[in-house]
């Protein structure tokens, strides 16, 4: 039973606060270099780079969980992961289409870049860091219907967490909750915990991570392990991180 080192909350060059350096190629090279077995790709409100990352990872012998970081209508961030890039792509399109039609202003918020395996690039015009029209509850049902896992993101942080937006964590059957500090574990002891970097820059990947005990090193098996709570969060950088 492999113990997989996983950092599931990583943004690519699609996430406006990021930089052009975090292209799919670069993310995979970096993840491999620092010794991660699994990474999750979780761009804001879209999945346009997920398939590219998934394919590159396959060639390089690491696993990508295709996913998304959704902003609910309450402006709470949550993570969803799927076992195939096709599912992530379809689901991501529904979320992208549910964003208001407001244009990105690259001079203020940076470019939102789609990058394919040959590093051809394309820009997304609609501003991605907006709120989807779907509520937290509705998204829970939608993600479950798609066979995904649902993880409230950085619930112990002061911006865009469900706890800050509502004042409490609604009691729901989360697959786990993402926390950023070891001290938060006690407060949310009724749930399983996961730690991830939330990296918007290459150098932040692996800053926090989790050990996932999956039966096999496959996306299906990793999602199953997450649902079963076979996760140990690590709140310090992965050893190879220099």
């Amino acid at each position: 039973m492999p113990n997989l080192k996983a950092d599931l909350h990583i943004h690519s060059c699609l996430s406006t606060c990021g930089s052009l350096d975090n292209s799919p190629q670069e993310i995979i090279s970096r993840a491999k270099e620092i010794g991660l077995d699994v990474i999750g790709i979780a761009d804001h409100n879209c999945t346009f780079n997920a398939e590219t990352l998934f394919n590159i990872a396959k060639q390089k012998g690491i696993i990508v969980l295709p996913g998304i970081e959704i902003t609910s209508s309450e402006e709470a961030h949550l993570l969803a992961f799927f076992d195939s890039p096709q599912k992530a792509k379809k689901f991501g399109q529904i979320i992208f289409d549910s964003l208001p039609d407001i244009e990105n202003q690259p001079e203020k918020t940076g470019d939102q870049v789609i990058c394919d395996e040959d590093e051809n690039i394309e820009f997304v015009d609609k501003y991605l860091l907006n709120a989807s029209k779907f509520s937290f509850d509705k998204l829970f049902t939608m993600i479950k219907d798609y066979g995904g896992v649902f993880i409230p993101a950085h619930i112990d942080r002061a911006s865009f967490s469900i706890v800050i937006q509502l004042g409490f964590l609604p009691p729901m059957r989360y697959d786990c909750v993402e926390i950023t500090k070891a001290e938060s574990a006690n407060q949310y002891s009724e749930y399983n915990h996961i730690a991830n970097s939330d990296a918007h820059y290459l150098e932040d990947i692996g800053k926090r991570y989790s050990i996932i005990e999956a039966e096999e090193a496959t996306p299906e098996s990793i999602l199953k392990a997450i649902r079963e709570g076979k996760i140990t969060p690590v709140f310090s950088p992965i050893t190879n991180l220099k």
Partner: protein
Amino acid sequence: MKISDIEKLEFEVINMAGDAEVTSAYTSDLLSDVMGNAQENGVLITIQAHKNTVAVASMKDMKAIIICNNREIEDDMLDAAKDEEIAIFKTKLNQFETSFLIGKLLNA
């Protein structure tokens, strides 16, 4: 009204940026709502004290942000405000009380 008129309300000045004319105000704690409905050259009254608030204010060409209920302001919010040249004030008043004062100034 000008940014310096807000300063006279005895709010704590977190970041001062020029003395632009302010012609409107918007009170909201949902940034997507601000994004959709706030007007340019406005002041934003909110409790969302993080850097994303500055990004939204900048995209809407707003001039100042007033943080209510003495919410703690994150360092990166201040850094962003300096970069974007947006004034930030902090007050112990709540959003309603602050809006009332700003409304009086705008109608003066």
